[in-house]
């Protein structure tokens, strides 16, 4: 029984983080219809920012998590720069294939640049404790406060995002661009600005995800983003790409699958299982659990 509970809690912990990351992913994908391979690496950027700023905050007498605000700023800047410098010019001149390759190139660049900069370097760094340890004990197994906090934050973010895209002008503009770009232009929406805003928000979310990630897994390393990003992408697709509640749903499902596979099958097969799910979803219902199918206009 306790193994089951343990596995369940680990799954919830993983899932809450995947959900947070997936929310940012799905938002950006919904708008520019491009898998931002670099999204996971934005998390890495956020993580390292906090590695450097947490000590500063603590010496100022502030709680560690205040460092997230600076991380949000840094990540948002990185995200917007990526869009302005790399994605936009290629979107204009190139094909969707070149845009995709650009995304991969940016991801590679960020990861390897981080490795090459000596202050960051290829060796992992450990973050100090951010939130109080401990949690609720159920049948000999602990459900961390941090995990519950992460779940709450994901839900809050999801609700806020949802309201934002439904009720605010900027949010609605984002939805318009994701549905029909040419029509949005005709309606007077500044598409370029909307896209940059989307990146800012999405990357900012990545910073929050980074905070919750290192709160539970304090090891920060340069390739931490790539697997995380990929699994978050699988989560977003599973739930329905471009659909905000879908990202939450997908995140938790993937987290639980990974946890249960690690416990009951084998840890080395866990990643493979996650990808297997992606393959099955894309073959059976590409629009995802909550998604609707839209064909190509001929």
């Amino acid at each position, binding site marked *: 029984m306790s193994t089951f509970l343990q596995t369940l809690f680990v799954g919830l912990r993983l899932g809450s983080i995947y959900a947070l990351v997936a929310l940012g992913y799905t938002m950006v994908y919904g708008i520019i219809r491009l898998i931002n391979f670099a999204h996971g690496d934005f998390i890495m950027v956020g993580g390292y920012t906090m590695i450097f700023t947490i000590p500063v905050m603590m010496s100022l007498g502030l709680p560690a998590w205040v460092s997230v605000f600076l991380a949000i700023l840094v990540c948002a800047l990185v995200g917007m720069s990526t869009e302005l410098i790399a994605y936009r010019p290629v979107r204009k001149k*190139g094909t*969707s*294939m070149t845009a*995709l390759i650009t995304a991969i190139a940016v991801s590679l*660049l960020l990861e*390897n640049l981080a490795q090459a900069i000596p202050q960051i370097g290829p060796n992992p760094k450990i973050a100090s404790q951010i939130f109080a340890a401990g949690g609720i004990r159920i049948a000999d197994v602990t459900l961390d406060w941090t995990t519950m906090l992460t779940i709450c934050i994901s839900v809050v973010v999801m609700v806020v995002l949802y309201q934002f895209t439904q009720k605010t002008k900027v949010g609605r503009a984002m939805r318009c661009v994701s549905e029909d770009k040419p029509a949005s232009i005709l309606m007077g929406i500044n598409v370029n600005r909307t896209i940059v805003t989307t990146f800012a928000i999405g990357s900012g979310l990545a910073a929050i995800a980074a905070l919750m990630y290192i709160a539970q897994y304090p090891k920060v390393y340069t390739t931490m983003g790539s697997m995380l990003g990929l699994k978050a992408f699988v989560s977003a697709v599973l739930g329905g790409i471009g659909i905000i509640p879908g990202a939450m749903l997908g995140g938790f499902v993937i987290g639980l699958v990974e946890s249960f596979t690690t416990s009951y099958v084998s840890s080395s097969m866990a*990643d493979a299982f996650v*990808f297997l799910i992606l*393959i099955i979803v894309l*073959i059976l219902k590409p629009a995802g659990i909550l998604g609707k199918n839209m064909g190509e206009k001929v």
Partner: protein
Amino acid sequence: MIKNKTTQGYILNTLVIALLLIGFSFIKEAYGKAGDFKLIIAPSIWQCCYLIILAASLNLTLGFLGQLSLGHCGFMAIGAYSAALLSLAAERAGIFTEKSGTAFILVLAGCILAAGILAALVGLLVGIPALRLKGDYLAIITLGFGMIIVNIINNLPFAGQEGLAIGSASPSLYKNGLGFGTALKVTYIWVAIVVTLVCVAMMFMFVRSKYGRAIRAIRDDEIAASASGINTSFYKGLTFAYSAFFAGVAGALYACSNATLSTASFAFSNGGILNSTFVVVMVVLGGMGSLTGSIAAAVVMFLVNYQIKNGMWVKLLPMWLQNIFAFPMLVYAVILVIVIMFRPKGIFGTYELSLRNFVSDMKKQRQSRLLQKQNNKEAMSHE
């Protein structure tokens, strides 16, 4: 005199290759320092050979068919491991004892072929579900498959875990079988070269036929291709499998030129040159849609990689630059970013470098210059 232009082209290209090979065998004999050929040039040629095959075969899928497959190295891994395991099995079964003689050559040929065929079968398996998807999704799914394949090999008891994996604890059983040491790499270098030439020729034959036209049509407009009667699923699957075949052969060559095998070298986030991103860099650099471009880019990237890792001049650079070169993948990432943003067509675009094209282009340029002169003269005489 042979009039047909295509035949002329073939004869010309064959002559050039023959000349290059003859020149090469002279170099082999007469090369400078005694050890250099054995220690540096021969292994380099082996590496160049499988890189060329990898790049050109991925170009079939990426450049000609227009689908981004990120799992190419998974197929290579299959080829490498199958070739290695089969050769070990053959050795255990007593089919050959030394790495020489007819029996061995037959085993070698058999392993290379089997490697390709196995990789092709897996390629088909992967392709059937994957090719129903487009662009981004196909990229991620092939990435996933690549990872799953390496994962599976890792978990097979006779391969990853106790068989061929490197680890201080596990015995490198692979020291026998195909793994060539330095001396044998020299003796059998003609194998690498011939296999590469045959593979490249096979790819050219594929591309300059109804198959090439069909897949380029699919690349340019899949709906229109369907509407022109092309069975897109069939050609996509065929190309995928065909491309995977060569990746498998490249893997076999890799297995030949390495005494040990490890799944870690094929991992996606690995900084080495066997990961699928490196192959993508080669294809993009050379030109998506140009086989000669891929060949050229493979050689270029090999030289870049070699120089970064071993070049004497690196020690002379400022420290921060040296730090960058300690991570070759960073250099490749920069190359990829620069190429994709400023010259997405790559070096050659869709143009195939060939002597015949070169000569006829020169002729056309001369013609148009003469025509222009004539037009100018006429224009002036009208005034």
